[in-house]
C-alpha cells in the first residue's frame, strides 16, 4: 500500500478503517465529521463484503488462477507509479518492488506470529540507498506481554525485510492500536 493521504479533516484514514474493521463505534470527532463518517461507512460495507466472500468456498482450476494473476499484474502495471515502488539493487540496473507487495509480505509475517495481527503497514525508502523504514499498526491478543511481543515483531520485520524483500530495514515503528480477547 502506498502512503495514505489524510482525510480532509486531517485525521489518518487508517485510524478510521481500523475502528470500522474492529467493529468499534466512531469517537466524538468522527460522529460529527462528514469525512470520517463517510470513510467509516465505506469501510464497514467493504468489511461485510470481504467477510461474505471469505466464507464462500473457492475452487479455481490452474488456468483460471493464472488468468487471475494476469489480471492482477495488468492492474498493477497501471497503478505502479515510480513513487509507489521501492528500489531494488541489481548489478544489471535497478529493479523495483511495489510498496503494496512489500507491505503484503511484511503483514503476512506479522500475522503468522502468535497473538499478533497487522493492521496497516507503511514503508518508506527515504535515502539514496535501498534501506527502508517501516511503520506498522498491530492488534494484540489480550494478556500478551506487549513489550516482549512488539520487540519480537520488530526483530521479525528486520529479518523479513532482508530475507523476504531483499531490503535492509533501518527503522521499525510499531503502534498497538487494539487488543482482542481470545
Amino acid at each position, binding site marked *: 500500500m502506498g502512503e495514505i493521504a489524510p482525510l480532509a479533516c486531517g485525521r489518518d484514514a487508517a485510524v478510521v478503517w481500523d475502528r470500522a474493521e474492529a467493529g468499534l463505534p466512531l469517537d466524538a470527532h468522527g460522529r460529527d465529521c462528514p469525512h470520517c463518517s463517510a470513510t467509516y461507512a465505506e469501510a464497514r460495507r467493504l468489511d461485510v463484503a470481504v467477510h461474505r466472500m471469505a466464507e464462500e468456498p473457492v475452487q479455481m482450476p490452474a488456468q483460471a488462477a*493464472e488468468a487471475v*494473476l*494476469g489480471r*492482477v*499484474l*495488468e492492474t*498493477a*502495471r497501471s497503478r*505502479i507509479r515510480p513513487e509507489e*515502488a521501492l528500489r*531494488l*539493487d*541489481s*548489478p*544489471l*540496473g*535497478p*529493479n*523495483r*518492488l*511495489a510498496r503494496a*507487495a*512489500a507491505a*503484503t*509480505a511484511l503483514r*503476512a509475517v506479522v500475522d503468522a506470529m502468535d497473538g499478533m495481527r497487522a493492521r496497516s503497514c507503511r514503508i518508506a525508502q527515504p535515502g539514496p540507498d535501498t534501506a527502508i523504514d517501516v511503520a506498522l499498526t498491530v492488534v494484540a491478543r489480550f494478556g500478551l506481554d506487549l513489550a516482549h511481543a512488539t520487540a519480537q515483531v520488530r526483530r521479525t520485520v528486520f529479518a523479513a525485510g532482508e*530475507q*523476504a*524483500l*531483499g*531490503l535492509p530495514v533501518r527503522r521499525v515503528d510499531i503502534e498497538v492500536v487494539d487488543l482482542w480477547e481470545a
Partner: protein
Amino acid sequence: MGGVTLHVADAAVTSVAAAAARQVPGVVAARTDLAAELVRVRIAVRLGDNCRDVAEAVQRAVTHTLAELAGRTALVEVTVAEVVLR
C-alpha cells in the same frame, strides 16, 4: 550465398521474455512489455522467496534468453508487482 536478415517482432520478444521470466524459481506469473530497447517485466513472487534475488535472477534470465534466441541486446527492468501468499 547472400546474407540473411533476421527480424524478431516486438510481440515475439515480449513472449520470449515472459517465458524466460516464468522459468525462474519463485516466479508465479509474469507479464512483459517493450518500450524502445527497454524490456519491462512485471512478476508475481511467492512469499518467502527473496524479491531482490528473484528480480535479479529474472533480469539475468531475460537478458540472456533475448540475446541467445532473438539476438537482441536489451535493458531489462523487473518490477515485483505482487507477493503471493501461500
